[in-house]
C-alpha cells in the first residue's frame, strides 16, 4: 500500500527582502523628517477644526506668548523662513538702526529660526549656542511699544527682503498662546494692518472630530 506522503511545507517565509525594503523606507523617512527645534518661547496654541496647513515657504511667524520673567506682560518673537531672506532682512535692519554685523554673524543669524531680543542685543544672541539661546525666558521679546517699535520694522523689512529675493508676498502667521488676552493679539494684528497686510493665518492645533 502506498503511503500518502504529506508534503511538509515550511511555515516560515524568507523575510530578508521584506526586511530590506522596510529598512530602506525607514531610513528614507528618518532622513526626510526634520528635527523639531526647541522653541525659545513655548506657547500653547488653541485648537480648531480647520485642516488647512501653513505654507512652508515665504512665511513669517509672529509668536505671542507670556513673558516668563515679568508677570502680565507679553513677549513677542519673530521668525522668517528661508536663509537668504533672513540674511537680507538683517542687512536692511542693520541699515535702519545703523548697526553693523559681520559676514559670520549674518551666516549665523540665517540659521536662527526665531528670536526675541532688541536688535541692539542681537549680536550677543547670535554668538551663543542654540541650546543656551533657546532656554525659555532667556530672550525678553522684541520691543513693540510706540516708543521703540522694532517689530514693525522687522515685519516691514522681512517683506521687502522676500519680495526682493523670492519676488513673492510674505505670508504672516500669528501664533498666540491660548490664554493670551485679546488686546495683545489685536496689537499685532493692528501692526500688520497698518502695513496693509489684511490676510494672515492663525496657527492652531488639531481638535477632535466630535467637537
Amino acid at each position: 500500500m502506498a503511503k500518502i506522503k504529506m508534503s511538509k511545507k515550511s511555515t516560515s517565509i524568507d523575510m530578508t527582502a521584506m526586511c530590506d525594503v522596510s529598512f530602506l523606507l525607514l531610513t528614507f523617512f528618518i532622513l526626510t523628517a526634520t528635527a523639531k527645534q526647541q522653541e525659545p518661547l513655548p506657547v500653547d496654541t488653541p485648537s480648531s477644526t480647520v485642516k488647512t496647513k501653513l505654507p512652508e515657504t515665504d512665511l513669517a511667524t509672529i509668536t505671542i506668548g507670556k513673558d516668563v520673567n515679568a508677570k502680565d506682560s507679553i513677549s513677542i518673537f519673530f521668525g522668517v523662513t528661508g536663509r537668504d531672506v533672513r540674511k537680507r532682512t538683517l542687512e536692511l535692519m542693520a541699515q535702519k538702526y545703523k548697526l553693523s554685523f559681520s559676514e559670520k554673524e549674518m551666516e549665523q543669524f540665517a540659521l536662527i529660526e526665531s528670536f526675541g531680543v532688541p536688535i541692539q542685543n542681537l549680536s550677543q544672541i547670535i554668538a551663543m549656542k542654540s541650546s543656551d539661546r533657546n532656554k525659555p525666558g532667556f530672550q525678553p521679546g522684541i520691543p513693540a511699544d510706540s516708543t521703540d517699535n522694532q517689530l514693525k520694522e522687522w515685519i516691514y523689512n522681512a517683506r521687502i527682503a522676500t519680495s526682493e529675493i523670492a519676488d513673492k508676498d510674505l505670508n504672516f502667521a500669528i501664533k498666540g498662546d491660548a490664554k493670551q488676552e485679546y488686546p495683545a493679539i489685536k496689537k499685532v494684528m493692528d501692526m500688520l494692518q497698518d502695513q496693509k497686510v489684511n490676510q494672515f493665518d492663525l496657527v492652531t492645533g488639531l481638535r477632535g472630530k466630535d467637537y
Partner: protein
Amino acid sequence: MAELNTESGGDKGGKVRSKKSNAKVDLTAMVDLAFLLITFFMLTTSLSKPQAMNLGLPDKGDEKTDEKDIKVDQKRTMTILLGDDNKIKWFHGLLEAPEPNGKPTDATYGKNGIRKELVKRVKSVAEYCAAKPGSKPGDGLIVIIKPSKKSTYRNIVDILDEMAITDVPTYAIVNDFTPEEKKLIEEK
C-alpha cells in the same frame, strides 16, 4: 549555547562532526519593528505641520472715503460679545429692539452652546432672505463678533471655528463697543 569542548578521548574513532548552525535568522520581529517605525515616521512627518486658520480683515485704510450709508437689515445681524471667563453673550437684531427669541442671552462655546443658536439662525435668516424681494443670492446671516478686552485668544479662535463649522455666510470682528454693549458684557 556555551559549551565546553571537552576532550572525549577520541578513542571512538568517530567522525568529527562540525555542527551545522542554522544560517537563517528569524527576521519577523525585525520586520515588525521596522514597519512600526515606518508608520510612526510617516504619520509624524505629515501631521506635525501646524494647522492654520486663515483670517482676512477688512482694510483699515481711509475710513472717511468709505460709504457709511450701507444699511444692513437688522433682522440679519447677530452680535456675539465675548466676555471674560469663556462667557458669551449674544443677541439677534438691535440691542434695544431684538428680534423674536433674540434677546441678549448667555451661552457657552462648543457643540451644545452657541452652535445650536447659530445653526438655527443661519437657517431661518437664509429662508428670510430668500423670501425677501430684492435680495441677492448668498445673502444670509451676518455675525458680528465683538471680543472684549478680557477675552482670550482661545475664545477668538473658538468662535471663528464655530463660524466655519456652522457656515455663517458673513462674519466680522468688530472692536468698537457701544456703552450699552459694554454694560451688558460687564454685568454678571
